[in-house]
C-alpha cells in the first residue's frame, strides 16, 4: 500500500435485481494514473458495477471513495461533479448537432450559448493537441465515423473536467486501426495522470494496455492481478471458472462443389441508402467463408437477403438453381425449403421469440414441417417438446427444460437453442451471423466446435462476424466487407489482423 489515496475505491458493493445478485460484496482499488481493466463474461456484473459508480443504480450496500473521500453518488450529475466521465458502448450523442454543440450540451456556462461554444472551441483545441484527440468541431455527428464519435464522447468527459474515465466495451464498433488510435489516446491520458477503467471482454485488449486487471464472474470479483503477472489462458480460466481452449482445432478443409454463388448483388434500403454495392462471391461444400468487417458495412443486409427477408437485385444461385430475390418466393420459408438455414445476428430480435417457451422456439421457422403436425388442423406440441428435449441434450443446453421461456436462458444457451434448430435441419448452407456475440467463453468453444463439425460433414458455411479473431480462427477463406462492397478475399494462413484491418477500413492492400 502506498500513501497516495486510490483514485477510486469501492468497498463491499452489493446490488440485487429481484432474486438476481448482480454484484456481491465487491471491493476494488484503482490507483491514479493507471489503466485498470475489468473483464468478465456477459452478465458477470461489470456494467452494473459501473452503473453504480456512475450513479445510475443505487447500491444495496457498500461505499464509494473518490480520491480518498467518501462520496454518495446518487445520479450522473454527482458522478460528473466527482470527476467521473463515462463513455458508453452506445454513444449518447445528438445526431444532428455538431461536435461542438454535443460537447457543450448539458454543460453550458449560461443561458446564452455563444460564449460557451467559444470557450469550448478554445478548450477543444488544447485538448486535441494534448491527447491526440483530433476532431472537427463543426462537423455534424451523423456525418462523422464511429471513431470520431467515440473521441467526441471522450472529449465530452474531459471537457467536464473528468479525472476518471470509464469506457464500456470501447472497441466493439472500431476497426483495428481505430482501436489502436484509441489506445494511443488512452496512453496519453494515463501519462497526464488520468485514471481509466476499461471494461471489455477481449483478453487481448487487457493484455495490451492495462496496468491491472480485475476479473468478474457471476457478480463476484474473483481476482485482481497485475497485468504483467498474468496471461490470457489464466484470465480466461478466472472468467469461466475452468480451463478453456482459446484456439479452434480443425482439420484442413475438404472443399467440394459450389453450393452458393452470389453475383452482383445490390440492395437499396427503405431510406434509399445503397447498402450492398455489387457483391459477388461463392461458397463451397465443406468450406467456411468468413465475412469480416466493422458492423454496419452491409453484412446484415447480405444475411437478410440470403435469409429471404430483404429484397435485392442481382443473382443468387443455390445448388446451381436461381433463387427468387424479389417475388413471391423471396421469403424465409422458401429459403428454408432450398436448404438454407440461418442463425441470425440478433438472436433476441430475430432468432428467438423471447416470451415463447423453448419448445415453441424449436419449431420457429420450421412450423410447417411434417413432423411437427398432429393432423391437417393442429400442430403436435408433444412432438415439439420431445424434439426440444433431445436437442437440448445434444447441444448441452442448460437448464434442459423445454418449458422455460427463451428469455430465461443465458445468452450462450439461447444461442445453442437457435443453433440446434438450424444445424439439425441438416442444411446445405448455414448462414451464421455473430455466432458468439453475448455468449460466455465456455459456450464459445462449444459453438465453434459445432460450426467446424458441420463444415466437416461437407456443408457450406457463411460466417459473418465483427470479431476478427473469430474470423481468423474459423474461416477457410476470408472476404472483407466495407461500405457495401467486398474489398478483397484472403486465405487465413496468408494474412493477419493488420492487413484485414486495413481492408476493413476501406484501404486496399499495399497502398497504405
Amino acid at each position: 500500500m502506498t500513501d497516495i489515496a486510490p483514485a477510486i475505491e469501492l468497498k463491499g458493493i452489493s446490488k440485487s435485481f429481484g432474486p438476481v445478485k448482480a454484484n456481491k460484496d465487491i471491493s476494488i482499488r484503482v490507483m491514479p494514473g493507471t489503466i485498470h481493466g475489468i473483464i468478465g463474461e456477459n452478465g458477470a456484473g461489470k456494467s452494473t458495477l459501473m452503473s453504480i459508480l456512475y450513479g445510475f443504480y443505487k447500491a444495496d450496500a457498500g461505499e464509494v471513495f473518490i480520491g480518498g473521500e467518501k462520496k454518495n453518488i446518487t445520479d450522473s450529475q454527482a458522478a460528473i461533479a466527482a470527476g467521473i466521465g463515462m463513455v458508453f458502448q452506445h454513444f449518447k450523442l445528438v445526431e444532428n448537432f455538431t461536435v461542438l454543440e454535443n460537447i457543450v450540451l448539458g454543460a453550458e456556462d449560461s443561458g446564452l450559448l455563444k460564449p460557451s461554444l467559444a470557450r469550448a472551441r478554445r478548450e477543444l483545441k488544447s485538448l486535441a493537441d494534448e491527447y491526440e484527440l483530433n476532431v472537427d468541431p463543426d462537423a455534424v455527428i451523423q456525418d462523422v465515423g464511429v471513431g470520431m464519435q467515440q473521441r467526441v464522447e471522450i472529449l465530452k468527459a474531459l471537457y467536464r473536467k473528468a479525472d476518471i474515465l470509464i469506457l464500456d466495451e470501447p472497441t466493439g464498433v472500431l476497426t483495428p486501426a481505430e482501436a489502436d488510435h484509441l489506445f494511443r489516446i488512452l496512453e496519453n491520458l494515463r501519462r497526464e495522470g488520468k485514471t481509466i477503467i476499461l471494461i471489455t471482454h477481449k483478453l487481448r485488449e487487457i493484455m495490451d494496455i492495462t496496468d491491472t486487471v480485475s476479473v468478474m464472474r457471476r457478480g463476484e470479483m474473483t481476482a485482481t492481478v497485475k497485468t504483467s503477472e498474468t496471461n490470457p489462458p489464466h484470465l480466461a480460466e478466472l472468467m469461466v471458472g475452468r480451463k478453456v481452449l482459446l484456439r479452434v482445432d480443425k482439420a484442413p478443409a475438404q472443399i467440394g462443389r459450389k453450393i452458393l454463388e452470389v453475383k452482383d448483388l445490390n440492395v437499396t434500403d427503405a431510406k434509399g441508402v445503397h447498402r450492398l454495392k455489387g457483391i459477388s462471391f461463392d461458397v463451397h461444400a465443406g468450406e467456411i467463408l468468413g465475412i469480416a468487417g466493422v458492423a454496419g458495412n452491409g453484412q446484415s443486409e447480405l444475411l437478410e437477403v440470403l435469409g429471404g427477408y430483404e429484397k435485392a437485385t442481382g443473382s443468387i444461385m443455390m445448388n446451381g438453381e436461381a433463387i427468387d430475390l424479389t417475388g413471391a418466393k423471396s421469403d424465409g420459408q422458401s429459403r428454408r425449403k432450398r436448404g438454407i438455414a440461418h442463425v441470425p445476428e440478433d438472436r433476441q430480435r430475430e432468432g428467438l421469440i423471447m416470451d415463447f417457451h423453448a419448445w415453441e422456439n424449436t419449431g420457429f421457422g420450421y412450423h410447417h414441417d411434417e413432423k411437427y403436425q398432429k393432423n391437417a388442423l393442429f400442430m403436435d406440441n408433444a412432438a415439439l417438446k420431445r424434439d426440444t428435449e433431445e436437442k437440448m441434450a445434444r447441444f448441452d443446453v442448460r437448464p434442459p427444460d423445454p418449458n422455460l421461456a427463451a428469455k430465461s436462458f443465458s445468452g450462450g444457451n439461447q444461442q445453442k437453442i437457435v443453433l440446434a434448430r438450424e444445424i439439425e435441419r441438416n442444411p446445405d448452407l448455414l448462414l451464421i451471423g455473430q455466432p458468439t456475440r453475448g455468449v460466455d467463453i465456455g459456450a464459445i468453444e462449444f459453438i465453434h466446435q459445432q460450426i467446424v463439425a458441420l463444415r466437416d460433414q461437407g456443408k457450406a458455411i457463411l460466417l459473418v462476424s465483427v470479431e476478427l479473431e473469430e474470423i481468423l480462427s474459423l474461416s477457410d477463406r476470408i472476404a472483407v466487407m466495407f461500405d457495401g462492397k467486398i474489398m478483397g478475399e484472403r486465405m487465413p494462413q496468408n494474412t493477419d489482423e493488420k492487413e484485414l484491418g486495413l481492408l476493413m477500413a476501406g484501404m486496399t492492400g499495399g497502398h497504405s
Partner: protein
Amino acid sequence: MDALPKWADVILIPVISILLAAVLSALVILAIGENPWDALKLMVDGALGSTYGWGYTIYYATNFIFTGLAVAIASQAKLFNIGGEGQALLGGLGVAVVCLYIPWPHWTLALLGAAAAAALFGAAWAAIPAFLQAKRGSHIVITTIMFNFIAAALLNYFLIGALKAPGMEPATAKFAETTHLPSFQDMFNFGETTFFRGAPANVTFFVALAACVFVWALVWRTRLGYEIRSFGESESAAKYAGINPTKIIMVTMLISGALAGMMAINNVQGEAERLVLNAAEGAGFIGIAVALMGRNHPFGVLLAALLFGFLYQGGAELALWTSIPRELIIVIQALVILFTGALDNMVRMPLARLFLAMRRA
C-alpha cells in the same frame, strides 16, 4: 417477469383488483348517501338471485364474450382492434338482411345463415382498416375508431331508408317467426316450473361458448395461431421465420371482425328480433375491458364477460330500486376497468415483492 407464480398472475391479481374497485365503489355509494352493503345485495340479488336475473346476466355476457374474443385474438397479433362496436353494428346489418329477405324454414338454419352473414359483415368491416394497416401503415387504432362512426352512420342510412319498416321508428320490420331463436325460457321449460321467464338469454350463449373453444384451439393449437402469436411477439422475428406480416394482419383482423360481428345473432336475432338504431349499445367497447381483464385468453374472457354481465344487470336493478342513478353503474364499471386494466402494475408490483420475500424466507 416471472416473479409471480402463474396462479397469482391469473387469479389473485384480478381478484384483488376487483376488490379494490369494489371498495372504492362502496365509498362512492356511501358519498351519495346510500348504503353500499344494501346496494351490493341488491346487485347480487338482481343479477344472480333468480333465473330471471341470470337470464339477463348471461344475455349481456354473451355479447361481451363475442366482442371480448374479438379484441383478444387481435391482441395476440398486437393489433388493437377498437372497432368491435362498428363491426358488431355491421354484423347486425348482416343478420337483418339475411333474416328479412330469406325465407328460413327453421330457426337452426336461420341461425347458421345469420351467423355466417354476421361474421361476413363484421369481417368485411374490419378488413378495410386491416388492409390500410398492412399495406399503408395507417394505424389500426385510429382507423378502427373512425370506422365505428362510419358504421353508425351507415346503419342510420339503412334504417331510415332501404331497411326501414313502415311507421315512425328508424328500425327494420320484425323478423319472421321461423328465424326466432329459442330463448332460455323455451329451452329450460320443465312442465310446471318455468325458468328464465322473460329473460333475453338465448341459444347464442352456447355459440359464444363454442367460439371460446374455437379461439383457444386456433391460437394455441394451430399453425395459424402460432404465426399470429409469433408476429405479435416480435415482428422482426416473424420476418426472419418467413411469416408474411400482411397475411397475418389481414387474417387476424378478419377473424376478429367476424367474432365481433357474430355478437349480432345474440342481440339482433336473439333478443330484439329486428334491427334498431345503436343495436350494439357499447358492447364493442366493453369487449376491450373484457379482453384486458381476461388476459386475452378465451377462458379469462368468458369469466370477465360474466362479471361485466353481472355489473350490467346488477346496475340496472340498482337504478330501478334505489336513488342511485344509472350513471353510477358506469362509474363502477369504469373503476373495474381502471383497476384490472390500467392500474394492473399497482397491484402486481407489491404482490411480486411479497412473493419474493416469501420465497427468500
